[in-house]
């Protein structure tokens, strides 16, 4: 049985080094349905609310979806390798809190940010090591990690948000600045997606990730370092969580002790809506971006239309459910 059943990769290595055009064509076929759904939402919302289609609102929507999108990209890598990472929200909070502490005590913001990213990758790798070597199920292991890292965050912050002059300066310089007219957080999202897209679609490493997720046994038998790949995807997830933490801390000019609570579910939702299979081996980050945008647009639209907050929760859940149901493909070759 060949690894995976989708058109995103084939069993013949030769096709992977084919022209970029072929890859792009495959991407289009895969994610087209989700894009169509997204466009339909945009059209519907612009008809229902005259405030929706303004540049400022659309810019808001993308920025509001940024945190979920970035965490979602990391989550995509993990899910593609048939894992799951429930600890992303806690990692986000912990790395942001540490970065904020450093910034507040005078460390250069760039350095502090890089430190946070390294910390995130390190924490992720640690989680991955535990999972790959102990054989504990990733659901349980990352659930435990969720608790541990959240607890560490609360210990570190004392339950108080970390804020001050340095954080306000960071906020203005990072979250509320723009480069060539494009808000910086949007550029961060695009850059992260581009890097992961390249990694997943254009490198042997990426192919290995899909392979591990599609059929772990077969991947192992074909010489792919399965354990190493599993550690890698968790490291990527941790790195993305830390990056998202910086974006969020920038938006809120503070590191909140409860930051990212529940974010893992939103990230998984974005990944699933985007078409990546929870069983692994199928999907990609482009879909996740659309998934995050669909969720962000939905919430923004409901705010613009003045929908009661409690109904917003219900509708959000129903849309996720609908997306998963629609995306189910019949199993088997």
């Amino acid at each position, binding site marked *: 049985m060949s690894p995976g059943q989708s058109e995103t990769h084939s069993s013949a290595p030769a096709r992977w080094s084919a022209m970029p055009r072929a890859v792009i064509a495959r991407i289009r076929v895969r994610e*087209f*349905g*989700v894009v*169509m*759904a997204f466009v*339909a*939402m945009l059209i*519907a*919302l612009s008809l*229902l*609310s005259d*405030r929706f289609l*303004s540049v*400022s*609102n659309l810019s*808001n929507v993308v920025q*509001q979806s940024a*945190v979920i999108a970035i965490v979602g990209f990391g989550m995509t890598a993990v899910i593609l390798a048939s894992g799951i990472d429930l600890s992303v929200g806690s990692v986000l909070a912990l790395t942001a809190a540490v970065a904020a502490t450093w910034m507040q005590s005078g460390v250069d913001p760039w350095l502090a940010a890089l430190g946070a990213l390294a910390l995130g990758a390190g924490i992720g790798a640690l989680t991955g090591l535990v999972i790959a070597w102990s054989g504990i199920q990733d659901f349980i292991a990352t659930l435990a990690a969720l608790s541990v890292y959240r607890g560490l965050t609360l210990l570190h912050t*004392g*339950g*108080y*948000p970390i*804020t001050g002059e340095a*954080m*306000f300066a960071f*906020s203005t310089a990072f*979250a*509320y600045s723009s480069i060539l007219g494009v808000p910086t957080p949007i550029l961060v999202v695009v850059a992260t997606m581009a890097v992961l897209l390249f990694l997943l679609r254009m490198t042997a490493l990426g192919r290995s990730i899909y392979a591990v997720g599609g059929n772990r046994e077969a991947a192992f038998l074909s010489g792919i370092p399965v354990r190493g790949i599993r550690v890698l995807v968790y490291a990527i997830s941790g790195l993305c969580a830390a990056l998202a933490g910086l974006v*969020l801390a920038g*938006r*809120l*000019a*503070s590191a*909140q*002790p*409860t*930051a990212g*609570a529940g974010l893992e579910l939103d990230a998984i939702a974005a990944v699933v809506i985007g078409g990546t299979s929870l069983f692994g081996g199928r999907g990609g980050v482009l879909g996740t971006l659309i998934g995050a945008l*669909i969720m962000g647009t*939905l*919430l*923004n*639209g*409901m*705010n*613009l*239309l*003045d*929908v*009661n*907050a*409690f*109904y917003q929760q219900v*509708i959000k859940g*129903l*849309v996720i459910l*609908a*997306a998963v149901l*629609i995306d189910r493909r019949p199993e088997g070759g």
Partner: protein
Amino acid sequence: MRRLFVLVATSALVFALSLGGAQQITLGLSVSTLNNPFFVTLRDGALDAARSAGVTLIVLDAQDSPAKQLNDVQDLIQRRVSAILLNPTDAAALVPAVLQANRAGVPVITVDRAVAGGEVVAHIASDNVAGGRQAAEFIAQQLNGQGSIVMLEGIPGTSAARDRGTGFREGLTKYPGLRLIASQPANFDRAQGLNVMQNILQAQPRIDAVFAQNDEMALGAIQAIRTANRTGIMVVGFDAIPDAVAAVMDGRMAATIAQQPAKMGQLGVETAVGYLRGGTVSIPVDLQLVVR
């Protein structure tokens, strides 16, 4: 299959529209959470005042999430509301939101809790410091100036929690016989109040009084005390929500510091309307002590 998804999503939105309100000259109220009866009353006061003044009021619930509240405020600005009534989930985290409103020329009035920066037209809140002091005074009198006291704190980072804590501690300094043996955050939440109180009961063999910075936590603490079969512990809350007033009346709670949330909401709307028609106001809202 994809078309079905499109249909479902679009239907969901059309359904949402049928639930939505009108969009005319409007005020926007961004409330921290509607899970707390205090803020429900505040919202209701605001809605009543809006109805009398003939303006529309949009209410967005941030569910105690600063990130969501930032998005809510941004969306209110998008909707070109005439003014924003903001009840911040966190004093620092909402500063960027206030700054954005300032830049967009939308006046901001903070209600019940303050923000740490940005320009605010008016701030409508109880004097939480005075309220904390009042609670300390009451406990001191009841205990004759001697005893061990526990405090349950609200969400760290809110001005309400900070001010009530400050006031309470200030009030205690006059009574050296009163010792604050534990002070823990329970985030203004009843379930957390119960859990934290249970843990403190385990750790402290002798407790004479508990001051909870809001009634929700106080009610949780009362539950914890009862379950642990401890006696002789008086509980004082803050807010005077209906459940708490009932508890005071039948003796389960010793006292609560009554705010006037409905009036706060009402004043918020009235101040906004008054400002938009010319003028500035800053109004402290009176506190009362509710005892049986």
